[in-house]
């Protein structure tokens, strides 16, 4: 099961990943539409990427009222049915990683699909510092107690 990994220590905060993701999925160079986001503390120079961690028992899917989210058991990715999604942000409310993007522009949730149809994930290709990588997942949930 392949998965996007991020390393905040290598992130420069340029948001090329978000833009590349938005371009590939929506054809729009709007970083706000990227399934990977970079949260920043500009004053103290810290950059932190948020992207779906592919939980085995995803809280977002459980919380979805509109039955718009599902977990694909084969690839482990979370599928968003945009026709069903109503932008109620229940998924945003429960994702422990803050990795669901609440797009007010679309009125829909955006969740990383691991670029499953592409050989290389768009964000990984766009990252100039190597702060994002794609690898086979060893664990899927991975919340340290």
């Amino acid at each position: 099961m392949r998965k996007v990994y991020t390393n905040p220590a290598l992130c420069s905060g340029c948001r090329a990943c978000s833009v590349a993701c938005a371009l590939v999925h929506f054809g729009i160079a709007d970083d706000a539409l990227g399934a990977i986001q970079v949260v920043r503390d500009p004053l103290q120079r810290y950059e932190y990427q948020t992207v779906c961690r592919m939980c085995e028992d995803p809280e977002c899917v459980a919380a979805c009222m509109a039955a718009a989210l599902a977990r694909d058991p084969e690839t482990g990715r979370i599928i968003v049915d945009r026709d069903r999604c109503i932008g109620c942000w229940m998924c945003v409310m429960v994702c422990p990683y803050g990795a669901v993007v609440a797009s007010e522009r679309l009125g829909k949730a955006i969740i990383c699909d691991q670029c499953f149809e592409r050989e290389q994930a768009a964000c990984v290709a766009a990252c100039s510092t190597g702060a994002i990588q794609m690898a086979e997942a060893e664990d899927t949930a991975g919340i340290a107690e």
Partner: protein
Amino acid sequence: MAGPIKTRYTIVGAGIAGIAAAEAIRELDRSGPLLVVNGEGVAPYCRPLTVEVLTDEKTPEEICLREAQWFSERKITIVTGDPVAELRAPTKQLLLATGQVVAWEKLLVAVGSQPAGVRIAGLEQVPCFTLFTQADAARLKPLCKPGAQALVVGIGLIGLQALTALRRRGVSVVAVEVAPKVLPMILDAEAAGYAQRRLEQHGIDVRVGTSVQELRPVAGGRRPYQALTSTGEVLDFDFLVMAVGMQPNLILADRAGIARGRGIRVSPTMQTSIPDIYAAGDVTEYPDWIEGGEEVHAHWVNAYRQGRIAGRHMAGGDPPPCEPVFLNSLRVFDLPIITMGASRRDALEGAEAFVAAAPARPAYRRLLVRDGRLIGATFVNDVGEAGVFQYLMQNRINIGEVAEELVNRGRKAFEFLDELHRQVVRGDLEWAPSMDLISEYRKNHRHTRWGHNEPEK
């Protein structure tokens, strides 16, 4: 009439709590006879989305919670339109309205809630609606025409959803709330201010600190009905929507002698006071670890989680208990709001409030922290990463040191979250192996651990 239907598990109510339980039972027991009985004569549906049906954004089919096939695939029998009339605990049976008897070994009461009412003089003389079920939405729909004037009584979650739907259909709305702020059970005064302004921008006539004293029909008036308010005003309207809260459906439980307060009392594994009878969802009450007392945590996520716990325990599993907190995700027209825990409190004994400083756009983020634990959180117009806070609250993680940084998205907060969310990355995953720049950088820094960036000693 044929003899009793014999089941191992019977679930009363096919809301999200009942469905989640059925799903959980089937994860552990694939074949034990499982019956779901629902009072409403339609396929199980998503209750909050009835509002979308009212505005024609969804069809009734589209808000179906689980289709017939879902039940048949799992060998679950579902009966709709035949409510349970009586619950017989000593003989482990129940009686449906049609007279059918059902025998059960384990029973789940997941009958949800109904709209609460208030007594207002003259109420029976005016057209009064509620918005809880699909049938309610269907009744209300023909009245939702541009130009119509509605009076919404109560600006809580359901009042908000009702008035939003009415407005979207072109209805003029005046809404009264007895508390001094809108959404009083959800928002603190500051957040409620944001919400109220947004309502007013969208043309809602909002009257807080106001109750309706009397209702009456008027002949030859601007509108056929009038309300007299506690502030001495007269409000004209065509129809009224009552949205003063909810109350658990306790009739069955009371007749069966199940212990209850405002809702059915349940153990951490959702067992009631009677052996082999469980309860989950809006019908239950549970000690609220944040505020102390018993609370009815009537929201979707809680109903789902409790349903799952009940189902697993009924099927012999050992589910981890989950202590409910209040969780709300709502939308005041285009203003998204997420709240958790004691968010409605302006202040709480022993708790400190942390408010985000200088937000980039009009937004409000506030954390309430007591003894290092997050006990309340509010996000207005900036709901990103709200789920992180849900996780911190639910797991009672000590955030005392970083609360201020968390609300402001500061460096220390992210380092803290890195530590918390550390992933086990494959040992041979090399970060940026090809880049000289990075290799140089890596010589001087360790980042073998997630989020750590310390110079080598």
